[in-house]
């Protein structure tokens, strides 16, 4: 596969790991702990575990898995609202597969479906719109979630619905934005992060500039990174170079996809349909200012929150969970009190155990291989 396989070459990987090892020693010198690099994005977490990159890195580097899994950080109350929507008899609730198993306080969409709600998995919001076209007698609600990467697609789908005059389609909007959340993490008092792997696909939409405060104000390096394993190794090397040279800049490793100014068409579609919410609730992180968007007044008829009455209850995260600490990088998943005991992928308590992209689920399923035990 073009643009994929060449970035998975194990021969190159070996060479880069040697370089990273040498550089990590220099960059970490004088520190009494390993260098903490946060990969903000769940896609990076996935690649890191999928290819066993974590185990390949030298001990001077510790990867911290960030909040970039939109499914994981969805608060229970919102899942409950979505289930309530799905249970309206006239509603066909359409969703990405990821959201099917996310537990609400009572049930997940999966359970709601089993109990008779019409819940359908789609690959694209445009498929949800097709369902609306096919069932004019039904109300088709699309469970819109994801960061800036996914926002243009739902925005464009709403614009398409408007153009065709389709009235039985709406979004239950749970889109979130990454910048305020990175800021919230940087503001946490117990912060121990030395640098960031920036989310490549969010950046292809928003560009490079929105990150500049991280370098200027917080003096941390961030390298926008692609999702193939060599992309990640190169990005780690770029962060280490900055650390060694005491630089803190926003750099772009993912030039084949990310342009510094982002994608104009995508941004204008977002701007047209969505507006920033004052606050949005994150599972594990609490309420974060300006971290979510909702459908603008002008498109109210495509907004499920305005179209239907939903319970809109706030459900507190389970007390035993330490997701917030894991998300901020102050606690490793396996050190959480409930990790692997009451909180497992089949019965997730906390946000990060919910999707395979979640840090805890990734730790749990891909496992921490005890290197002493392996006979190679």
């Amino acid at each position, binding site marked *: 596969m073009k643009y994929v396989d060449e970035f998975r070459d194990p021969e190159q990987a070996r060479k880069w790991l040697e370089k990273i090892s040498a550089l990590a020693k220099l960059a970490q010198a004088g520190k009494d702990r390993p260098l903490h690099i946060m990969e903000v994005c769940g896609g990076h977490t996935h690649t890191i575990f999928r290819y066993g990159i974590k185990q390949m890195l030298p001990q001077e580097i510790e990867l911290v898995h960030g909040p970039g899994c939109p499914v994981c950080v969805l608060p229970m109350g919102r899942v409950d609202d979505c289930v309530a929507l799905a249970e309206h008899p006239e509603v066909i609730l359409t969703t990405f597969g990821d959201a099917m198993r996310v537990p609400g306080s009572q049930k997940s969409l999966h359970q709601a479906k089993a109990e008779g709600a019409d819940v359908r998995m789609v690959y694209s919001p445009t498929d949800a719109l097709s369902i609306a076209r096919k069932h004019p007698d039904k109300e088709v609600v699309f469970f819109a979630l994801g960061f800036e990467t996914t926002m243009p697609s739902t925005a464009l789908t709403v614009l*398409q619905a408007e153009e065709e005059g389709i009235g039985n389609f709406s979004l239950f909007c749970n889109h979130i934005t990454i910048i305020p959340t990175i800021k919230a993490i940087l503001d946490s008092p117990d912060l121990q992060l030395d640098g960031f792997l920036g989310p490549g696909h969010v950046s292809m939409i928003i560009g490079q500039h929105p990150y500049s405060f991280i370098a200027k104000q917080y003096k941390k390096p961030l390298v926008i990174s692609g999702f193939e394993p060599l992309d990640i190794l190169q990005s780690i090397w770029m962060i280490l170079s900055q650390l060694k040279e005491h630089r803190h800049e926003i750099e772009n490793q993912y*030039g084949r996809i990310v342009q510094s100014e982002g994608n104009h*068409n995508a941004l204008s579609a977002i701007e047209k349909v969505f507006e920033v919410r004052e606050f949005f609730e994150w599972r594990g992180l609490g309420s974060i200012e300006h971290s979510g968007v909702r459908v603008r007044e002008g498109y109210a008829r495509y907004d499920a929150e305005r179209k239907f009455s939903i319970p809109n209850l706030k459900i507190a995260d389970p007390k035993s969970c330490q997701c917030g600490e894991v998300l901020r990088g102050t606690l490793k998943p396996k050190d959480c009190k409930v990790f692997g005991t009451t909180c497992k992928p089949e019965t997730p308590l906390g946000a990060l155990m919910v999707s395979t992209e979640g840090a805890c689920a990734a730790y749990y399923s891909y496992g921490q291989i005890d290197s002493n035990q392996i006979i190679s």
Partner: protein
Amino acid sequence: MCLGIPGKIIEITSTENKLARVDVAGVKRQINIACIVDDDHPPESCVGDWVLVHVGFAMVRINEEEATRTLELLRKMGEMQDEIKAMQKSEEDNS
């Protein structure tokens, strides 16, 4: 977050609605190309373009030059490592 995969546009199915067919390793699907077209790049000009596909939308056109540049850099750095090692080795041999 945000699964995206490179694919090649093989056909424009609707210029008006900005729809195209994309090929990902032999798997085909209709996608929306609104994010990658403008006056300089009308839909008709998109056939043959490599794009990044996310949830049924072409999000960006892949920059071939940049991809090649990154790959060259990846390779060059790897080779440099060999040179460094060779240098270190020759120093050891000489001492």
